[in-house]
C-alpha cells in the first residue's frame, strides 16, 4: 500500500464528468486532518468544498486553480505517513498541461534519428515507420461545420451541427395510438415507484413515448382533480387487466371535499425554499433537555410551532370564508389539522386550540394524533373544525406540492422533504439542510401580500427558530 495516496476528483453528483478547481484551501507542505476542507470545486450545478479523504501532509497539487479536471483524475497527493521519514523520489514527473496533452507532437527532436529512417521525421510532419507514411501530429480541434468560424479554438463551445450526426433515424414525435406502451427504462421505473399505470398516460415523447414529465403531470392531475384520461391515451381495452374499486367511506368523503374546495375557493400556492439547518440543530438541543426527555420530537413539531406563532402575527390566515353569511370569520383559536395518510385514505385530524399548548404538549399531541390516525381510530370529532392544516409530503420523499384546502380553511401548508443541499451560507457554498414550504391559500380571504408575509414568517422561524422566537416575543 502506497503511503502517498492520490486523491481523485470524486463524482460530485448526478454523473457530472468534470469540475473546475476554484481555489485550493491548502498548499503543498501543509499538514491536514481527515475531512479537512482542502479544495473548492465548481461543477455545472454548484460550488462544492471537498473534504480530505486522508490525514497527512500535502505533497503535490496536480492542477492549479482555474483548471477544469475530469472526474477520476488525481488532484492532490497526500503523504499519509509523514513520520516514516523522507519519501522515495519516484513520484511521476511534471504533469503535462492540458494544452500540451491535446496536441501531442510525435515527431522526435531534431537530429535524434535521420530523416526518413524509423523514428525519424518524415514528410508531412509525420514520423517514419517501416510500413507506411507514419503517424502524424493531431490537434484537439473539431472539424468545422457550416456556419461556424473556421479554426475555432478548443476553448470555444463546440458548434451545433446543422444536421444531426450519424445514427438511427431520429424517432419522429408521433402520437401512439395502440400497441405497447413506449417509455425509456428510467421512466418505467419512476412510474412503477409512484404507482402510475403507464398505459393511462398520453406520451409526449418521441414515438409517442411517455416521458418523465408526463408521469409527474399525470400525478399532479390525479391529486387536484378527478383524473380524466384524454383522447389519445392508451387504447388498451382489456377488461381482464382492469380492477374496479367502489368509491365509498373516507375516499368518497375526501373526494367530495376536494371537489368542493377546489372548485369554490380560488387557490393560490406560494413556495419558499429555506435552510432549516438551525431548526434541526434546535431539535437536537431540545432532545437533550430534560423537558423533552421522553417525548418524540420531529421537524413537524417546529413547523407546527412556526405556524402557530406566525398565525398569531397574521390572524387573517386562520379564518373562514362564509358564503352563507357573506362574512370572513377570523378565529383566534387554531385547530391545527395534520394531514395523515391511512389505509382508508387521507384524513386530517385536528389538534384543538393548539396555540395554547406548550411545546411539549404540542409534541405529545402530534405524536398521539399520528398514531391514532394510523390505527384508524380517529374519532369524528377530531376530524372537524380545523382552521389551519399542515400536510407533510416530505415523508413521501417529495419536495413540495400544491395542497388543496380542506373545506372551511383558508390556508394550508405543505412541508416537504428535508435534504442536504448546497446553499449559500455566510457567503460560501455549504451543505445545508434545505426544505421547501408551499402555502396554498384562498385568495378571497388572503391576498398575495398577506400570504407572502405569513410564509416568510414561517421561513424566518424555521431558518432561525431561536432568533425568531425571541424577536416575536
Amino acid at each position, binding site marked *: 500500500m502506497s503511503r502517498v495516496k492520490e486523491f481523485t476528483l470524486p463524482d460530485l453528483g448526478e454523473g457530472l464528468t468534470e469540475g473546475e478547481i476554484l481555489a485550493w484551501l491548502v498548499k503543498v507542505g501543509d499538514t491536514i486532518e481527515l475531512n479537512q476542507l482542502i479544495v473548492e470545486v465548481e461543477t455545472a450545478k454548484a460550488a462544492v468544498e471537498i473534504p480530505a479523504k486522508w490525514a497527512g501532509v500535502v505533497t503535490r497539487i496536480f492542477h492549479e486553480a482555474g483548471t477544469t479536471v475530469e472526474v477520476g483524475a488525481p488532484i492532490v497527493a497526500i503523504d499519509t505517513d509523514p513520520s516514516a521519514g523522507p519519501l522515495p523520489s519516484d513520484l511521476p514527473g511534471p504533469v503535462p498541461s492540458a494544452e500540451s496533452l491535446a496536441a501531442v507532437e510525435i515527431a522526435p527532436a531534431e537530429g535524434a534519428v535521420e530523416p526518413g529512417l524509423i523514428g525519424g521525421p518524415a514528410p508531412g510532419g509525420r514520423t517514419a515507420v517501416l510500413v507506411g507514411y507514419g503517424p502524424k501530429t493531431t490537434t484537439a480541434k473539431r472539424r468545422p461545420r457550416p456556419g461556424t468560424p473556421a479554426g475555432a479554438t478548443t476553448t470555444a463551445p463546440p458548434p451545433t451541427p446543422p444536421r444531426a450526426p450519424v445514427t*438511427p433515424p431520429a*424517432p419522429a414525435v408521433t402520437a401512439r395510438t395502440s400497441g*405497447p406502451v*413506449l417509455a*425509456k*427504462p428510467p421512466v418505467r421505473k419512476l412510474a412503477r415507484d409512484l404507482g402510475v399505470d403507464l398505459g393511462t398516460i398520453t406520451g409526449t*415523447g418521441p*414515438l409517442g413515448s411517455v416521458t418523465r414529465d408526463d408521469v409527474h403531470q399525470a400525478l399532479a392531475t390525479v391529486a387536484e382533480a378527478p383524473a380524466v384520461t384524454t383522447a389519445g391515451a392508451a387504447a388498451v381495452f382489456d377488461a381482464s387487466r382492469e380492477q374496479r374499486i367502489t368509491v365509498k367511506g373516507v375516499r368518497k368523503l375526501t373526494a367530495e371535499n376536494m371537489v368542493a374546495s377546489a372548485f369554490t375557493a380560488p387557490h393560490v400556492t406560494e413556495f419558499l425554499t429555506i435552510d432549516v439547518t438551525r431548526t434541526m440543530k434546535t431539535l437536537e438541543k431540545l432532545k437533550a433537555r430534560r423537558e423533552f426527555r421522553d417525548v418524540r420530537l420531529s421537524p413537524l413539531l417546529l413547523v407546527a410551532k412556526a405556524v402557530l406563532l406566525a398565525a398569531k402575527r397574521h390572524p387573517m390566515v386562520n379564518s373562514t370564508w362564509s358564503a352563507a353569511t357573506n362574512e370572513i370569520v377570523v378565529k383566534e383559536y387554531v385547530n391545527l389539522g395534520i394531514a395523515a395518510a391511512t389505509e382508508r385514505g387521507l384524513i386530517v385530524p385536528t389538534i384543538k386550540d393548539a396555540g395554547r399548548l406548550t411545546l411539549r404538549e404540542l409534541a405529545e399531541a402530534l405524536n398521539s394524533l399520528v398514531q391514532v390516525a394510523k390505527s384508524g381510530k380517529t374519532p369524528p370529532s377530531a376530524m372537524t373544525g380545523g382552521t389551519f392544516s399542515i400536510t407533510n409530503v416530505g415523508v413521501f420523499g417529495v419536495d413540495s406540492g400544491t395542497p388543496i384546502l380542506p373545506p372551511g380553511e383558508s390556508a394550508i401548508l405543505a412541508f416537504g422533504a428535508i435534504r442536504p443541499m448546497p446553499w449559500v451560507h455566510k457567503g460560501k457554498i455549504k451543505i445545508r439542510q434545505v426544505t421547501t414550504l408551499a402555502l396554498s391559500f384562498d385568495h378571497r380571504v388572503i391576498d398575495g401580500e398577506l400570504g407572502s408575509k405569513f410564509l416568510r414568517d414561517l421561513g424566518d422561524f424555521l431558518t432561525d427558530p431561536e432568533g425568531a422566537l425571541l424577536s416575536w416575543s
Partner: protein
Amino acid sequence: MSEIITLGKALNHGLRRTLEQNAKVIIMGEDVGKLGGVFRITDGLQKDFGDDRVIDTPLAEAGIIGTAVGLAIRGYRPVCEIQFDGFVYPAYNQIVAQVAKMFYRSKGHVRLPIVIRIPFGGGIGAVEHHSESPEAYFAHTPGLKVVTCSNPADAYSMIQQAVNSDDPIVFFEPKRRYWEKGEVDLAADLAGAYPLHASRIARAGTDATLLAYGPMVRTALDAAAAAAEDGRNLEVIDLRSLSPVDYDTIYASVRRTGRAIVVHEAPGNIGLGAELAARISEQCFYYLQAPVLRVTGYDIPYPAARVEEEYLPDLDRVLDAVDRSFGW
C-alpha cells in the same frame, strides 16, 4: 416430396445437388473423400463424382483454405471442410487476411466464392477442441459472411445457397444436431427457398423474444414449450445468418414483446449476444420492458465432457433468464 431425414443427411443431399449442378464445385478437406467425412456429411460423394471433385487433402488447414483461394482465382467454387471447430485456427490467417479481403483488395476484380464448412458447438461429450463456438471471430471480420442452420430443411437449402453465392461464406453446422431429424422437401426449387441471410420466427409468441442460432435453437424451442405450460408465450427467432444479421425481424419482434433474451453456447464476453444486445437497446429503447439478457457459455475454456452439460445453456437457464426479465 418431403422426407424425414437427419440434418447431416440433408447437408449430404444439398452438397450432392451442388456438385451435380455446377461442374466448378469441388469439395475439399481432411477425410472427406474415401471416408465420407468424420460425420459422414460427404458420404458417397467421392464415389459418385470422382476424386478430382471430392478431394482428400493433406492435414493442413491453412493449406486447405490457401489452395482454395488459388482454386477460386482459377474459377472454381471450393467447398472446404474444416474437420472440427477447434482446428480452424491454423486456417484463420488465410480466412481473415486473404479470403475476407481479396474482393476488397482487388476492388471487385477477384471473387472468392468459397464456402468453409465447420461443425461447431458442444454437447457431444468430446475431448478438447471439438466443442468450440468460434463464430464471433468470423462474424467480426468484414468481408466474410457467416451463416448457421438449426434444422434439416434449412441445412438442405442453406448449404446450396451458400455454395451458389459469390460471397465467401463460413458455414457453421451444429454438430450435436447432425442426427436430429426433420422434414425436408428434396425436390424443392431453391429459388423459392427462404433467403440465406434472413432470420426466421421459429415459434410465434407474445411475452418475450428468444434469439438463438445453430444448436441453441432447439434448446430455445424446448424452453418455449416448457414455458407455455406455465402460461408464458415465448417467441423464438432462429437467427440463421450471423453476418449479416437480419435485424428487421428481430426489432419487429422485440417491439411487440418488449423483452429479448439471447442464447448461445459461445462464451458470453464479447460474443454475438453482446452485439445483439447493443443494437436492440439502441433501436428498441422505448419498447424495452427489461434489459436484453444473454444466456451463454461461461468465460472459461470449454470444460471436460463430464461437466459440459453444466456449462452449456439449457432449458432451465433460459427460463430463469426469462423470469429475470419479467422481474424488471
